[in-house]
């Protein structure tokens, strides 16, 4: 579903992501794990085609996200870290807008509204929504058109414990029908919902393995992350 080859990105002199190589198969829930500033969001934005790589490439379903961005984007539903909502628009207006730019009719709106439990806020201005609802509206926008690949950047960021559990349950359900790639720095979240883990530290990949394998080898994901980072930093120095 996704293949990254020598993927790198710099911002001026700062190297955000350096020579990432990985391949993700369809039908799994994959976590991008790393501390804040590790390069998770940069990588996800390159996968969506919103950001051009400095070098290397990403293929989504065989389409190069830089050379064939629109064919690649047609496969992707993207929830950025900050939900991309127009505060001046009502929820229903934003859903219709996204249907229009995705070339869909409005018939799919009811299904995502039901799935994300948005019926009660459809007529509300998005600027007045709580953080939890904003996140769910953002997810509903990503789900419109039923794209095979969902990319969720910090989907539980800023939610209260009940909302976090609700969002995780939703992600688990979505994982049954879609390939889900999510970024997080919460390892408990990875253990709760993900099959596969990509660990990233200072822009470089330090682990690409199944969650079960890493837990089996190190006891838990936190130990796995610390051990892999230590080895990686030692190799670099």
């Amino acid at each position, binding site marked *: 579903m996704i293949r990254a080859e020598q993927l790198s990105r710099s911002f001026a002199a700062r190297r955000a992501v350096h020579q990432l190589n990985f391949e993700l198969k369809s039908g799994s829930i994959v976590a991008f794990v790393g501390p804040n500033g590790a390069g998770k969001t940069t990588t996800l*934005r390159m996968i969506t085609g919103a950001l051009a790589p400095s070098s290397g490439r990403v293929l989504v379903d065989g389409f190069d996200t830089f050379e064939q961005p629109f064919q690649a984007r047609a496969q992707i539903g993207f929830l950025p870290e900050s939900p*991309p*909502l127009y505060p*001046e628009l009502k929820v229903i207006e934003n859903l219709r*807008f996204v249907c*229009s730019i995705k070339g869909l009719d409005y018939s799919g709106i009811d299904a995502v509204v039901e799935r994300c439990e948005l019926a009660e806020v459809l007529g509300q201005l998005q600027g007045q929504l709580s953080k939890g609802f904003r996140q769910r509206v953002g997810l509903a926008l990503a789900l419109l058109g039923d794209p095979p690949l969902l990319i969720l950047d910090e989907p539980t960021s800023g939610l209260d414990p009940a909302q976090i559990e609700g969002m995780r349950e939703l992600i688990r359900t979505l994982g049954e029908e879609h390939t889900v790639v999510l970024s997080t720095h919460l390892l408990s979240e990875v253990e709760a919902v993900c099959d596969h883990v990509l660990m990233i530290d200072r822009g470089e990949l330090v682990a690409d393995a199944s969650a079960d394998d890493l837990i089996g080898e190190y006891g838990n994901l936190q130990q796995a992350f610390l051990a892999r980072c230590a080895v990686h930093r030692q190799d670099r120095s």
Partner: protein
Amino acid sequence: MIRRIVAVMKVELLRQFTTPLVYVMAFFLSALSGYFLIVLSQGFIELTLKFGANPEAANLHFHERIIAPLILNIEYLFVVVIPLLTMRTLAAERSQGSFELLAASLVRPWELVCGKFLALLAVIIALCAVIGFEPLILAWIAEPGSAFDYGALATAIIGLCLLGCSFAAVGLAASALTESPALAAGGSFLFLLFAWVLRLGGQGDGFFGQLLPALSPLTRLENFAIGRLSAADSGYFVVLIGIGLMVAWRGVDRHRWKG
């Protein structure tokens, strides 16, 4: 393609009309143009009374004495108003995060710019219609048989629309280059202020005295204001709009590179 452009245009119009700014500007423009109209009409009446016996001596042409100066005053208001109208179009998309939705969507950068520009075009036409409506009141209350040049008024309003659209294209370009709406407004205001300075350069003699005002969009409205359609002036506005949209398109596309 058309559906995406129309969708962007609709959302931009919703954004414009759900904030009070457009209504405040429409009120501000109609109030000031009404005030200008009254002052210019009073001056015209005084001249008529003074030179009534020999109207030719005072060049008492209704359109040139009232409508043209009115339109030329409105252009200065546009220098202030249009940057406020355009500042949020793309800059606020970035600052509020909705740009990410568009950047990762099937909307091409040029479709985004076209949609935004068409929405601004609709707002500017609405504002010009408000301004054009007030002189029509004079035509309705005038005595039957009075000479009111509807064609010249239409030409002047078309010129004002073209000027507004060229300012909007400049504002859109400024808004595409920053994520701060205030900076976008400031940037386009400075550009339009520079156009004003170019026009003032025409008060001198010599080569530059003729060249500099010809480069200013403000000068290009003069023919339209007196009811004269000019291909050169229309072409100038079209080119300025084209350059503005091109810069805006590059500004949007740059986001992929710059991040």
